[in-house]
């Protein structure tokens, strides 16, 4: 189906199911219970899962396949966001204008930056991309303020032209009248409350398409060529083949994915901040990809979800919440438990994240995907389903010597 073999089709179907069922899957605990804190099924976070998933999928096309480690992909994220917000300011709130523009502008920037940076390889390439992204960030924050609104972030003002804005048109981002921040269904089952949000499904459908595209790229001769570049570029060059056009194509494609992700961020929330382009944001996508399992199809998405979950859920646990958790314990023990847990949550969420990073890297060289496989192997003797393809990719990566 769709040019995929049966194994991949099954894999794709599983991914589609998981994506569409996210509002239910991420809401495992009933409201009002102590564990409700860990629910992640609210629109903003689900949208972020999908968007950063796209970002990481795109990054993986470059890094996972060719091994070129870009430290500047956040620049494309920012460019995508700025494009979309500018379209809001000039035309109207329909995202149909901004999103294609986001992909095109980030593609152009990626072409220019990639053309220069790909003249070098290894860490020299990483530093070149980092330098471009940091320059974009610094300029967007200060000198380019007329274009980016600097520290405050680009947003729509009431004085903006918005030439296409109709009288009855929604005044927040929408797709032909489907308002992104509205929910189309809010069922509650017992104490469980589920939120089905327009914006999330918009992102989810795009994410599925993006995933499908990356699946096709992975399985195509082009993808094979990119893998060949990763395993031995020199040998490729000796055979008389110029690998640059291939890596450049991969760079531009992944830059466009990043631009799309940035555009979607601004489609969900009409603001574009310069921090999106900072090196920490570039580093974040690297972490997501490696954490999830570079070179695997699903890994980067898992990694993206993992990091965003920590950022948004763990940072909100304060002492007050801890006391309600441990409230059933005798006073002395309660305070003791709160003291023990306190450094790891709330303002200490970075610490937990850092420790988990280290744990994953030390014990799971193939990333979270490897964890899934290990757990899977416990239950099944033979890997017969689509995860097989993942296993191969993970193995290939694990066997690659230090690059």
């Amino acid at each position: 189906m769709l040019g995929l073999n049966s194994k991949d089709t099954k894999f794709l179907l599983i991914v589609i199911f998981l994506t569409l069922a996210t509002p239910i899957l991420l809401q495992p605990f009933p409201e009002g219970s102590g564990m409700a804190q860990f629910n992640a099924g609210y629109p903003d976070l689900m949208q972020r899962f999908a968007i950063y998933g796209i970002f990481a999928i795109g990054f993986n096309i470059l890094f996972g396949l060719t091994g070129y480690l870009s430290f500047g992909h956040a620049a494309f994220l920012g460019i995508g966001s700025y494009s979309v917000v500018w379209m809001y300011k000039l035309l109207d709130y329909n995202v149909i204008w901004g999103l294609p523009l986001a992909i095109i502008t980030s593609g152009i920037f990626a072409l220019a930056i990639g053309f220069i940076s790909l003249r070098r390889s290894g860490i020299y390439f990483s530093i070149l991309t980092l330098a471009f992204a940091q320059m974009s960030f610094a300029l967007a924050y200060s000198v380019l303020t007329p274009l980016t609104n600097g520290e405050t972030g680009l947003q729509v003002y009431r004085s903006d032209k918005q030439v296409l804005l109709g009288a009855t048109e929604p005044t927040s981002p929408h797709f032909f009248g489907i308002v992104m921040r509205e929910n189309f269904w809010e069922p509650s089952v017992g104490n469980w409350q589920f939120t089905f949000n327009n914006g999330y499904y918009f992102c989810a459908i795009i994410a599925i398409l993006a995933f499908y595209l990356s699946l096709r790229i992975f399985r195509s001769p082009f993808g094979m060529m990119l893998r060949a570049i990763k395993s031995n570029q020199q040998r490729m060059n000796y055979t008389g083949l110029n690998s640059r056009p291939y890596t450049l194509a991969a760079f531009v494609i992944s830059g466009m994915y990043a631009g799309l992700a940035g555009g979607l961020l601004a489609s969900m929330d009409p603001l574009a901040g310069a921090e999106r382009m900072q090196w920490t944001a570039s580093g974040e996508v690297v972490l997501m990809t490696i954490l999830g399992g570079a070179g695997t199809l699903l890994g980067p998405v898992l990694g993206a979800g993992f990091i965003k979950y920590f950022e948004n859920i763990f940072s909100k646990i304060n002492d007050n919440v801890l006391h309600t958790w441990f409230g059933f314990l005798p006073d002395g023990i309660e305070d003791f438990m709160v003291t023990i847990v306190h450094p790891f949550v709330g303002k200490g969420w970075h610490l937990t994240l850092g420790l988990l990073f280290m744990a994953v890297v030390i014990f799971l060289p193939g990333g979270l995907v490897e964890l899934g496989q290990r757990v899977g192997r416990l239950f099944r003797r033979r890997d017969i389903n689509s995860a097989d393809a993942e296993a191969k990719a993970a193995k290939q990566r694990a066997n690659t010597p230090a690059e």
Partner: protein
Amino acid sequence: MDAILLQILNGLDKGSAYALIALGLTLIFGTLGVVNFAHGALFMIGAFCAVTMQRILTISQTTIDESRTDFLGNPMKVETPYVENWFGPELGGAIIDWAVPLAILFAIPVMICIGFIMERGLIKHFYKRPHADQILVTFGLAIVLQEVIKYFYGANPIPTPAPAAFTGSFDFGVLLGFDPNAIIYPLWRLVYFVFSLIIIAAVFGFLQFTTFGMVVRAGMADRETVGLLGINIDKRFTIMFGIAAAVAGLAGVMYTPINSPNYHMGMDFLVLSFVVVVVGGMGSLPGAVLAGFLLGILESFASMNEIKSLVPGIDQIIIYLIAIVILLTRPRGLMGRKGVMEE
């Protein structure tokens, strides 16, 4: 003319901090082949050694002064450092005043220990793993280290003044025949510059003129052969890791009067120090030092008003711009060897 001289001086000082950090980073990369993203954190821990030294020296005896009240109307608690009780306010005060230089003695063993623990406990297991894994695990470690520091010391910068003898500045301008105040230079920065030159010289001297250094250099060039000769190169590399950590730590200790230490100062320097190392050429010690000073001086020039008015915002991007230009004209940085970190 005086403005240019002034910025060269500034640049040398900025550059000496860059050079020291980049030197340590290159030592680790050159010997162990590990890309250490926790190096900025080592610099930060060095700075906090100075803070700790200051805290130790100012451990205080609390007495209650009934004649004054605090903000809640209770009798005021007055804290007098034990050091002042023991040695009298004069000498005791002077000792506290010299906390930062004294912290050097404290930082060297601490940093070497931290370096050993890091190498033996963690980095050792990553020699055979891809560079990406090394980056990730050391980055994770950097986050953990800085969060631990934040937990104990808070997020606010902590004042760590230089000894009173070094506040104020030295007037170079008068020396060179310019007007007074044309070229002034803070005394502590002068100290920092000289200090970094001494450290750089010591590291190079150690590698160049001792047997230990010779073996390490041989190991950097060809680890396997040196190993085959029956030399325990791993042990020596571990020691080099400790030394590199100490270099980073000392750079941090001495930097505290210039830049009040806070828990994220390591991250602030991390990206910059990598740019310096790469511009210098991966694995090249002289390259790292050269690039450090070069970038420092050019950054200072870019912040001159005359240049900023020509190209607004140039001081924000100069480092990266130079990195791009150098990497495009010299593929492996200023003094990089072929084949290192290029795959």
